[in-house]
């Protein structure tokens, strides 16, 4: 294993993580809910009374963040290596997988691990494993980075 020190950003990543945690903590303390993005988006597809407004408000806050950020700092670059077919396939896999698995990196990876939920620990281990394997296959076996 070789560490990419040139692009390693421990301090800004830690600061960003603290802020992500703060958003999740606020939502837990004030709304008593899990801030899991796949669940928030997916729940909009099966609307039920009193369960739609807060989802839209959360997503508006999420999309509003870069608009406010851009007033003070340049926005980070979004480098997407995947081509269009891979991007669509990835989106479908993420959509179906997070709904069957009841969560994603935020819901299981942060909220669930915070609560020491055995289900979330299993889910996080599973998606990290296939995440690592997929990148290894694409970059080092098929060589199609």
């Amino acid at each position, binding site marked *: 294993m070789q560490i990419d020190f040139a692009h390693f950003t421990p301090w800004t990543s830690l600061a960003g993580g603290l802020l992500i945690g703060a958003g999740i903590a606020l939502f837990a303390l004030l709304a008593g809910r899990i801030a899991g993005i796949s669940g928030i988006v997916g729940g909009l597809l099966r609307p039920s009374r009193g369960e739609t407004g807060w989802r839209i408000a959360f997503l508006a806050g999420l999309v509003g963040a870069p608009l406010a950020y851009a007033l003070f700092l340049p926005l*980070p670059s979004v480098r997407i290596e995947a081509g269009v077919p891979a991007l669509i396939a990835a989106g479908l*896999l993420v959509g179906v997988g997070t709904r069957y698995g009841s969560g994603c*990196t935020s819901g*299981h990876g942060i909220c669930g691990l*915070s609560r020491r939920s055995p289900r979330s620990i299993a889910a996080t281990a599973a998606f990290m494993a296939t995440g690592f394997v997929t990148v290894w296959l694409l970059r080092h076996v098929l060589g199609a980075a």
Partner: protein
Amino acid sequence: MILAYALLAGFVFGIGLLVSGLADPAKVLAFLDLAGNWDPSLLFVMGGALLVAAPAFAYIARRGRTLDGAPLHLPARGRIDRRLVLGSLVFGAGWGLAGYCPGPAVVSLAWGGLKPLLFVAAMVAGMALFALLEKRS
């Protein structure tokens, strides 16, 4: 009030995604590439988030109510089943394919151009497919 809470929480979460570097799929893929030139930054994002979120969840679990005294809506602790594991394995494959998980994809809709939009559209289609299959069974 929940609308204001959700807006605020989403906003802080979104700023965190921008600061952390996770809004850039290439950075996520650099973390997932253990055999290449590995960038461990994402571990620090995870650690930072857990450091703040864990005490908050512990506190409301003890309190049994929100700060306002409203009831909690936390998922019940269930068994580890096939759906959970298979679904998460599929999610991880999609995550490794493009470097996007749902949060960063939604946040980059604001300035990332057409590609994040395509990803999010496909993701919502996948979620709709799930909802359809669930309804039928």
